[in-house]
């Protein structure tokens, strides 16, 4: 309040309010990130076994166990604060498994996973919203009935089931490609390899987004303000994709933020089915081999990514409608 009146005359108070809320959001995200970092430290530090054991001990080769040289090389413990410091300074350690810095290896793999997750996520968001709006305004049209029926039927069917069904369908004719066989990366090869995983993840997630969006739109569609908009003589298209959309978007986006974790999960599983060399595959391997730094790195990166998506969703909500969260405040209730 003080700032608004005196300190910062160049900020009008709407912007000020916006910044304040954003700052609040950022600090709370900061807390979340901090907790996650600590969690990753604690959980991983307590993993039984270590890289040395996984790598060298369960072999029938007769490697001399207890070789202090190797062991000490692979079993460095930096302690919690060291870890915090390293994380903050982006020195995320070294992946023994891939003999590269964790950030580098993640940097190599992340784009592929991102492409999978983000394209599937946004496909489902955009498709879901589009279908949701279009069917919601066509109540009791056969198309609406069919799409609602179909989407309700397949909503929540696990990605791996979709992937498996795709595998069945395509293993008879077109072979699901494996990214690994490719020697070169060109747009078309990548697109070719991506298509089934992406479609699997997207198909598994579209129904959910669709139903959420449609629900939201149906409630908003009877909002009197739509009548006002019609009264202004605006076109149907404009009303649908401006008025309806910005009313339906905040709840849909906030659900999307939550769902994003699930999409990521689904992507990991689909990676498994299609032998897609993404973060999921990397993570399984890292866990199996106890590549501690890589485990932490992947955990943090995925968590950060989910946070980022949530943040993005929140920010978009804020931009669309700065008071979305205010209306859910507990202050008036206490």
């Amino acid at each position: 309040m003080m700032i608004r009146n005196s300190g910062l005359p160049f900020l009008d108070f709407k912007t000020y309010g916006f910044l304040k809320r954003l700052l609040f959001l950022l600090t709370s995200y900061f807390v979340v990130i901090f907790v996650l970092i600590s969690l990753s430290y604690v959980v991983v530090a307590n993993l039984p076994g270590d890289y040395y054991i996984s790598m060298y001990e369960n072999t029938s080769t007769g490697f001399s166990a207890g070789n202090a040289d190797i062991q000490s090389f692979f079993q460095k413990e930096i302690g919690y604060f060291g870890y915090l410091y390293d994380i903050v300074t982006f020195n995320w350690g070294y992946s023994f498994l891939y003999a590269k810095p964790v950030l580098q290896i993640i940097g190599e793999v992340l784009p592929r996973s991102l492409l999978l997750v983000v394209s599937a996520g946004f496909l489902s968001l955009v498709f879901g919203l589009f279908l949701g709006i279009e069917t919601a305004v066509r109540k009791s049209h056969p198309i609406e009935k069919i799409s609602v029926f179909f989407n309700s039927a397949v909503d929540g069917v696990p990605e791996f089931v979709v992937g498996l069904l795709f595998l069945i369908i395509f293993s008879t004719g077109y072979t699901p490609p494996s990214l690994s066989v490719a020697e070169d990366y060109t747009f078309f090869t990548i697109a070719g390899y991506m298509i089934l995983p992406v479609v699997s993840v997207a198909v598994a997630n579209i129904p959910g987004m669709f139903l959420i969006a449609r629900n939201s739109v149906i409630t908003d569609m009877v909002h009197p303000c739509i009548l006002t908009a019609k009264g202004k003589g605006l076109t149907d298209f404009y009303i649908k994709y401006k008025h309806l959309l910005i009313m339906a978007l905040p709840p849909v986006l906030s659900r999307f933020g939550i769902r994003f974790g699930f999409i990521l999960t689904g992507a990991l599983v689909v990676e498994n089915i299609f032998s897609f060399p993404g973060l999921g595959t990397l993570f399984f391997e890292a866990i199996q081999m106890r590549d501690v730094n890589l485990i932490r790195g992947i955990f943090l990166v995925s968590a950060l990514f989910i946070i980022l998506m949530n943040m993005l969703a929140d920010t978009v909500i804020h931009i669309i409608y700065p008071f979305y969260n205010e209306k859910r405040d507990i202050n008036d209730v206490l």
Partner: protein
Amino acid sequence: MMSYRIMLLLLFIAVLLGLLFVCLKDYEPAYYQPFLPPCKDHLLGTNDIGYDILTVFLLSVFNSFVFAVFVSFATVVIGTLLGNISPFLGKQSDFLLRKTFDIIIVIPNILLLIFFSSLFKPSMFVAGTIIVLLQWATVSRVIRAKAISAWRKGYIVISRQMGASKGGIFFRHILPELMPVIMVMFVNKLRMALFAEATLTFLGLIDLSSFSLGKMIRYSTNFYYLDVWWNWILPPVFALICIISLVNFFGLHLEKVFNEHIRGFPV
């Protein structure tokens, strides 16, 4: 809605048969020759270890369903309790709780589950508990939002103005108001639990010693190269899809029933 009823009936029958098997027969089915094709004695043939697939299938449906009910029930109960607690405890605890939701929600569940299962392959019970612990937050978040908007409603403000206690208001007004949401959440979480069980077992993250649909799919897909698609792989896949659709339709139905009086007519 017709198909919905029929599916409900089918699920009911399947669960009942599963129950029958659990009660009457030895819980573990007997060994026969592996990979028998479907025949009179084994309507769906036998699997790699020589179990009658139909028996395994029914037991799996039963187990998966019971698991899902357990998980969703626990999730919703915990979620509802914690989602309603903030109006009683105050602003600080509400803040803490909300941060807890936020943290739990952004934790990549699967990664944490992989962690846990690398410590020990959790049994279905333990895995269920972990899922509950990771999932209550989403329920709480929704319930809290609904509860708070309920607490803001005019008649509750008036009740409070007339001196009603918070507890009294909670049981008289808030809980009935939340009931539809809770039911819908329950259905959602039921679906989520089925989903999670199938996915995690498929990935081999849950102890594979009890029967479940995920386990069936996992084992059967190992033999994708054999002629077992129709009798072994697809039954659990379709059963899973059917149960999930059924749960969805049930949820849709509930939502419709609950929303009828809330929602206005389209303009």
